[in-house]
């Protein structure tokens, strides 16, 4: 029973720091017995007096008034564990539900427990599916969720999906079923097209947010922009930078013109610089802008080029800038007027050289979030370090994402950033060369780090100066960065690195491992040493049956475990499945998998309250 509730009350907020399950119960017990909180005392008195009549109703009435103020998922999960009464009231007052794995429970269980849901956040496929490690049509279908919610939550306002398969029919049902619908956010989703988007645009009259982020949207040839209704809209955010389809610019201009509340606008690659200019003149109130292509389709029409800088100058409120999908670098200086206001800048689609970059970044004193391609080189990173003292998040992507590519950024860039950006909290860094010294320096200079993801693109690459494995670098990170919750490792790594992780990585929730380690002991260190581990994704590493068995005490407390191209045997996976009935153990392979073959190509396992799913494709076997 308790296990049921704790599984449902899963805390997945990466930013929250929830105590492990056992401590949490203790904390609640303490809280209830202290006199600082009057509500439980009151209720106890009430219960004593009215034990014959309706104690539960009084209690629940009071609780309802109190609990409605609880926003944090973490707090709500804790409250729901107090007793059945609290569980009931909490379920009645939770208006936003987060489900980290769509297969952890059935839609019916959701609607049976939570009766007044206005907002759903749902995640589907595991992250490694992004890198073609999972065959298409694996699952994570939105359909059963939308059809169940259509009947249960007619007042639903917000749906936020990540890595789900969403069809046009699903979108049509959504648009039809929820008259008060306000926010649709689709991140890394696929299965739908512009026709589905058109239906949402047309039927959701209260729509405030339509954000399509990094999703695959098929071009059905539908002019979806024109499908927004006439008259003033409630639109606050419209992001379609991932939609690879031409749009009706006149319709877009009209839409922006009649959307006075529009703050965020992210254009796609097919909106030209001239069109952007026209939009900016009509929407100076924007705070977040995705600039589209930032290039001309053809040679400029007129002799007189539009004054792009003036258009940006008029956008005094822009603090977040992205886009630059087909950047014509000679126009980059037009953004200079907004640079000093920027808190977020995304250049990760633009091949910008250091010389083009430095004059721009020199003005971005307030920058907190910065994404770019490694084309800015170590030199560009040094410029970031010199100027962006408030930097919290840095992501450097490879322009040429191959193992043998040149690699214009290295340990020099990392070192510079660590020295200049002391408030750094999150970093994703792709490179070809790295040293332990630079990683150690970052661990010492940036104590606020919660996310450290280093991808040395050449597999098994050692410290390029010393020739040693990268163990000490990552060891320093887990040792010195006391707030670290997410770690991705790479380069040549022995079991020692994992020993460090198990010893010091006490807050780690997400761990990504690829081509690392020497033996089962490595994985064992992590499974036995990291009590907060929730998401474990491993590929191409020498961890087998022995290691897998070491984690049996943890798997019910984790969201998922992914292991691909590891020496696991089907027999062992079957043993795990048998020993843990609430764990769904999926073996994902190719169609022509020989049933006799003992080798497990991909293992994906996760806890589930409702047993194995009923939409299993041919290439998946549930043990």
């Amino acid at each position, binding site marked *: 029973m308790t296990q049921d509730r704790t599984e449902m009350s899963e805390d997945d907020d990466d930013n929250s720091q929830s105590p492990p399950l056992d401590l949490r119960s203790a904390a609640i017990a303490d809280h209830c017995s202290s006199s600082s909180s009057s509500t439980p005392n009151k209720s106890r008195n009430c219960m004593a007096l009215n034990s014959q009549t309706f104690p539960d109703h009084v209690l629940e009435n009071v609780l309802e008034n109190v609990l409605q103020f609880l926003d944090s998922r973490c707090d709500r999960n804790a409250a729901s564990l107090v007793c059945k009464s609290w569980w009931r009231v909490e379920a009645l007052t939770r208006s936003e539900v987060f489900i980290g794995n769509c297969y952890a429970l059935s839609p019916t269980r959701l609607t049976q427990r939570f009766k007044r849901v206005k907002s759903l956040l749902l995640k589907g496929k595991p992250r*490694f599916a*992004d*890198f*073609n*490690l999972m*065959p298409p049509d694996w699952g994570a279908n939105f359909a059963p969720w939308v059809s169940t919610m259509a009947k249960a939550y007619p007042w639903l306002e917000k749906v936020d999906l990540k890595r789900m398969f969403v069809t046009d029919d699903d979108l049509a049902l959504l648009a039809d079923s929820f008259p008060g619908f306000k926010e649709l956010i689709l991140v*890394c989703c696929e299965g739908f097209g512009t026709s589905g988007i058109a239906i949402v645009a047309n039927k959701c009259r209260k729509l405030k947010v339509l954000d399509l982020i*990094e999703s*695959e949207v098929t071009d059905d040839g539908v002019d979806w922009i024109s499908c927004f209704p006439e008259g003033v809209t409630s639109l606050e955010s419209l992001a379609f930078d*991932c939609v*690879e389809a031409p749009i009706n610019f006149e319709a877009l201009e009209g839409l922006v013109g009649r959307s006075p509340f529009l703050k965020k606008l992210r254009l796609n690659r097919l909106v030209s610089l001239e069109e952007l200019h026209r939009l900016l003149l009509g929407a100076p109130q924007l705070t977040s802008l995705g600039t589209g292509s930032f290039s001309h389709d053809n040679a400029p029409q007129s002799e007189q080029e539009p004054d792009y800088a003036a258009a940006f100058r008029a956008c005094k409120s822009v603090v977040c800038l992205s886009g630059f999908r*087909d950047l014509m670098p000679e126009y980059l200086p037009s953004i200079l007027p907004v640079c000093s206001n920027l808190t977020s800048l995304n250049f*990760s*689609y633009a*091949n910008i050289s250091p010389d083009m970059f430095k004059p721009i970044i020199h003005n971005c004193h307030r920058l907190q979030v910065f994404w770019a391609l490694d084309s800015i080189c170590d030199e560009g990173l040094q410029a970031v370090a010199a100027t962006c003292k408030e930097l919290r998040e840095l992501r450097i*992507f*490879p*322009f*040429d*994402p*191959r*193992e*043998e590519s040149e690699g214009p950024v290295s340990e020099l860039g990392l070192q510079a950033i660590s020295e200049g950006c002391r408030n750094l909290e999150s970093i994703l860094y*792709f490179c070809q060369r790295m040293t332990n010294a630079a990683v150690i320096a970052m661990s010492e200079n940036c104590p606020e780090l919660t996310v450290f993801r280093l*991808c040395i*693109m050449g*597999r*098994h690459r050692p410290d390029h100066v010393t020739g040693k494995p990268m163990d000490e670098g990552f060891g320093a990170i887990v040792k010195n960065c006391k707030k670290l919750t997410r770690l991705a490792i790479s380069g040549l790594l022995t079991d020692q690195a994992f020993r460090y992780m198990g010893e010091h990585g006490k807050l780690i929730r997400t761990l990504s491992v*690829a*081509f690392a380690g020497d033996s089962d002991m490595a994985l064992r260190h992590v499974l036995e040493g990291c009590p907060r581990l929730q998401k474990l994704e491993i*590929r*191409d*590493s*020498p*961890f*087998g049956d022995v290691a897998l068995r070491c984690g049996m005490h943890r798997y019910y407390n984790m969201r998922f475990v992914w292991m691909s*191209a*590891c*020496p696991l045997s089907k027999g062992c996976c079957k043993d795990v499945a048998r020993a843990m009935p609430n764990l769904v153990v999926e073996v994902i392979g*190719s*169609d*022509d998998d020989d049933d006799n073959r003992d*080798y497990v190509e991909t293992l994906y396992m996760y806890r589930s309250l409702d047993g194995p799913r009923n939409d299993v494709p041919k290439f998946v076997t549930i043990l």
Partner: protein
Amino acid sequence: MAYEKVNELNLKETELCLGLPGRKEEVKEEQDVSCVRSNNKRQFEETRDEEESKPPTKTQIVGWPPVRSYRKNNSVSYVKVSMDGAPYLRKIDLKTYKNYPELLKALENMFKFTIGEYCEREGYKGSGFVPTYEDKDGDWMLVGDVPWDMFSSSCKRLRIMKGSEASALDSSSL
């Protein structure tokens, strides 16, 4: 140890040939094959390391480095396609295709011809038409040798060769 085992499995799979587009089995095999693939250009084929004990130095692994595919499309997607004997060129958007069978089928439809069967060792056989492309370095390569992602990001233009020129390419590469 484990890594080598995986390697062995995958290398065996790379010995399979791509067939005509449209044939389901072949398409599936192509997906399997993409696990480990040599990215050596055709002219370096002789020097490829055949030993399975050493980790291959020039192989492309699926999903590595872990960059989402939409980020890999840094070059302009439209490429010119010429066919020997055809009066004018065509342009296609490489991004609309996800793999070789889709591309080859589109080319066949566009120019009304049939491409022969592809085999890693011998190129295209059977029809006298050979799809080739010019890569970033200016070299003319045979379509199909390298993993799709690598091809689509380095292809600058396509040329469908036919007749004697096509067979010259075949024999010179061996």
